[in-house]
């Protein structure tokens, strides 16, 4: 809220002596940080950030009250004229508990307009003056004292005024010209012809004050915050009035604000008071709150003398009585946020200044807990992938239905994962897979000129269940573009599916995940995190002896059909070899060339043998012959 310095100084003269920086620091220390300062003709306005619990501070008077308590300086008295109340000129009936008090007055307006000083105050606070004294005075009062009031054209009101719940489907054209259809939970001010205002939110068009208005009926009431908030939300009608009533106005201000309004109209346009009266009364205050000194000391981090606490709360307007080692505190009528002992402790600390809170490390009361295995696993996998040259991405959890459909299995319908109120269609489904997001990110990077793209993400994916979307932490990796070719020793080649298979092996995935071809030269896979092997419990595995005898290596170059399954061949050859001596059997080269017989390729199979003795050539030759025979049984031939 904008606070104008000159008007603030009228409420608390001591504030005039502070420079802007000091004032901002005091306000910040009180919990009201200043977001900006605007220089105006001859003065300044501060953009003060007021938290939602402090409706009482949303005015110049409210901020002045806080400064007065902190600086221990007096507030200027509120200059109300003396309005003597009399009999009701118009019956005002309060039919709902949500409006316990309704002060009003009827005045005949005379000649005159809003004083220039007030107009410039309103302009400074971004409230445009209407040049109708009754309207401008009401706005000025709201900004200055925080109490919303309203002026009706008294001659437009038919008969008695009632504060009541609206009838279903009743309508009201509000001041903004919109026809509102009301519900039974909307509180209205009504005359005998129907609603004339949405209580605490906005007046009605039919009874609004215009330049033709001769007599006004003023309203200065108090409405239940919850009711005002609900109506403002229901009608999407958030006004200065609903903002203040919604956060809790001061019921004791109802009469005072009415008197201030009367005095302004008398002064500004020679208005004549015809009558003033009040229906209802200020509601009984909430029960006092006890503040235990032990609790205060616990919260503050050190003992706070009873007198100091008592004095601080009294400065904030609380009525404090001492009962043993506790304070019995009745908050002032404008504070609705002091409901429990902790609230009061905060007030004491706030006035002392949070800078006085000591700094202490909390003692350990029990053993620290371990990091969860799933968390550690994610950390380990992410680090391994980063070391392998992959970049971790963070993409949105919601994607378009089309993107989602690319990788969502049929048993995971999008309907159960769709948002009711997405930011847009393209962000409407909680993704079943991370691959659509990674594919889009990879393609974007390739368009940006990346030679090689290596990305991974660790994030939840969603599965529709009757109880709602079930989250499953997943790992997805994509790899594409050109590998190597960036230095004189590494030849360039395209990234292939086999590279993803190698990555899966590096991560110790059990088996090969499905490698998807996401686009030309772009591949990816996705696995659930649970599929990744857990870190071992043992710090170091059990020792397994290994042979110290030399190993023997033999290669076999085989001509095989193009359709030959490597797994079958490998299995057949391994079965023919002595398991206890076979260290390794692997294909180390695949050669496909027009020089080979049509329909055939050459595989170079490498075997490594080792035993607990020195292997002799004849023995190894025998094994190799057996392996060759096994390969030949599948149609392979020794390549000449």
């Amino acid at each position, binding site marked *: 809220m904008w606070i104008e310095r000159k008007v603030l100084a009228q409420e608390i003269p001591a504030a005039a002596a502070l420079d802007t920086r000091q004032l901002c620091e005091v306000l910040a*220390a009180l*919990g009201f940080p200043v977001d900006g300062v605007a220089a105006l003709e001859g003065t300044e306005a501060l953009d003060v950030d007021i*938290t939602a*619990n*402090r409706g009482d501070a949303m005015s110049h008077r409210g901020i002045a009250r806080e400064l007065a308590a902190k600086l221990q300086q007096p507030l200027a008295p509120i200059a109300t004229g003396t309005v003597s109340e009399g009999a009701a000129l118009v019956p005002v009936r309060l039919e709902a508990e949500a409006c316990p008090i309704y002060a009003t007055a009827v005045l005949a307006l005379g000649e005159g307009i809003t004083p220039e000083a007030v107009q410039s105050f309103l302009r400074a606070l971004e409230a445009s003056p209407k040049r109708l004294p009754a309207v401008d005075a009401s706005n000025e009062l709201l900004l200055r004292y925080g109490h919303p009031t309203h002026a009706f054209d008294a001659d437009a009101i038919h008969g008695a005024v009632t504060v009541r719940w609206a009838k279903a489907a009743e309508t009201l054209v509000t001041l903004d010209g919109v026809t509102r259809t009301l519900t039974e939970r909307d509180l209205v001010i009504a005359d005998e012809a129907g609603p004339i205002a949405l209580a605490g939110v906005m007046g009605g068009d039919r009874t609004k004050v215009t330049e033709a208005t001769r007599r006004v009926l003023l309203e200065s009431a108090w409405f239940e915050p919850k009711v005002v*908030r609900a109506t403002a*939300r229901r009608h999407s009608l958030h006004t200065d009035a609903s903002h203040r009533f919604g956060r809790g106005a001061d019921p004791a201000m109802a009469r005072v604000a009415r008197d201030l309004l009367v005095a302004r109209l008398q002064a500004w346009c020679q208005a004549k008071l015809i009558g003033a009266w009040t229906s209802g009364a200020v509601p009984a205050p909430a029960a006092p709150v006890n503040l235990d000194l032990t609790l205060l000391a616990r*919260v*503050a*981090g050190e003992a706070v003398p009873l007198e100091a606490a008592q004095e601080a709360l009294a400065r904030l307007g609380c009525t404090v009585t001492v009962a043993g080692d506790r304070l019995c505190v009745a908050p002032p009528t404008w504070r609705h946020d002091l409901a*429990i002992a902790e609230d009061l402790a*905060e007030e004491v*600390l*706030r006035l002392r200044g*949070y*800078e006085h*809170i*000591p*700094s*202490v*490390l909390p003692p*350990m*009361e029990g053993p*620290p807990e*371990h*990091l969860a295995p799933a*968390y550690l696993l994610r950390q380990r996998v*992410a680090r391994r*992938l*980063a*070391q392998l*040259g992959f*970049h*971790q*991405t*963070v993409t*949105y*959890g*919601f994607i378009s239905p089309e993107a989602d459909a690319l990788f969502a299995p049929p048993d995971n319908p999008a*309907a*159960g994962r*769709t*948002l*009711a*109120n*997405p*930011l847009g269609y393209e962000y409407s489904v*909680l993704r079943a897979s991370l691959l659509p997001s990674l594919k889009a990110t990879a393609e974007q*990077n390739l368009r940006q000129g990346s030679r090689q*793209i*290596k*990305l991974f993400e660790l994030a*939840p994916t*969603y599965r529709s269940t009757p109880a*709602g*979307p079930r989250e499953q932490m997943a790992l997805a990796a994509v790899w594409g573009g050109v590998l190597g070719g*960036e*230095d*004189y*020793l590494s030849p360039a080649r395209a990234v292939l599916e086999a590279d993803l298979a190698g990555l899966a092996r590096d991560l110790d995935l059990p088996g090969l995940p499905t490698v998807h071809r996401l686009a030309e030269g772009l591949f990816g896979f996705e696995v659930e995190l649970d599929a990744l092997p857990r870190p071992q419990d043992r710090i170091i595995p059990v020792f397994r002896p290994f042979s110290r005898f030399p190993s023997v290596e033999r290669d076999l170059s085989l001509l095989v059909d193009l359709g030959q399954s490597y797994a079958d061949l490998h299995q057949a050859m391994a079965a023919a070899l002595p398991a206890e001596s076979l260290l390794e059997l692997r294909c180390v080269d695949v050669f496909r060339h027009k020089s080979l017989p049509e329909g055939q390729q050459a595989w170079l199979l490498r075997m490594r043998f080792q035993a607990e003795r020195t292997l002799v050539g004849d023995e190894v030759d025998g094994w190799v012959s057996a392996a060759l025979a096994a390969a030949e049984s599948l149609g392979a031939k020794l390549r000449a």
Partner: protein
Amino acid sequence: MDQLLPPEIVEAGQTFPAALAACGDLDALLRLKGAFVGREASHATRLMELLKTAPKEQKRELGAAINGLKQQWEEGLKVRQAELEAAKRKLGALAASWDPALPPPQPPRGALHPLNRLMDRLVDVFRPMGFHVEEGPEVETEAHNFDGLNIPEDHPAKASSDTFYLAAHPELLLRTHTSPVQVRTLLRVAPDLAARGGIRFLAPGRVYRKDEIDPTHSPMFHQVEGMLVGHGIGMQHLKGTLEYALRALFGPDTEIRLRPSYFPFVEPGCEVDVSCPLCGAKGCRVCKGSGWVEILGAGLIHPNVLTYAGIDPHEWSGWAFGMGVERMAMMLSQTPDLRLFFENDQRFLKAMGGLD
């Protein structure tokens, strides 16, 4: 003397030095050697034949001349051979030499996402104080996201203009903060809180709010929640812990400042400022000249939050804080646009991320 020799040999003899110099490699030298002093059909063998058939009286003189020539040729060839061999060795050595300025093969180097790195760093900072990591789902219930946190029934954050809800499950939403992890964790540990000796944890994670995407807003962002419950916990413990953690993060000279503020789930509540880590609190663009940067919101756990979880607020108390990860990352890196963190341009990730 020369008249005793055939003129073509005399001529060859005269061109020998030039021919020798023209030999660029050992092969050429070998050919020249063959032509002059080779065992067959060389100038030398022809001269030897000439000597055989020469008249006796000329033999002595001719023999001396021939020897002189042969010696001259052999000497020249030897010297040239040594030169050529030295040059070859030198080239061989050069060919085997390595120029360290040539770009070497580079082992691949990827990067963790800068937001994840920052969250990991925070976990590292809190680990020595006995904090572990708690996590919760991103799809949450209204009860965990709002009700358990003392957020009033009619709070505006609950509106569909602020919070994403699931179409098929109106009671489910995307969590708007990491605070529901507080509720879940407190509910879980409440029965044996005394045996555990309270609890202290961090909850890093992704959260969602219905904000349009622009340079300072994103519908998905990250928070790190911190919570501690114990006996006799007050604001001094919050201040002590944060002072330790923020000094570990930003350096030992870092100062912190608590200012009163309001969040429904804490009482008292505060905002925490840190002396500007970029300018050393001298005043810069990032701290807007004030020397302070707002870093997180915190406070003592509201008794209603403890009560909701089944923990007696008369016996137990604690503190909680919540920190915006993007905000801190942007501040520290001076990244001008929040969207860069979600665009995942490899150049950005490589530059802003790291391996640990």
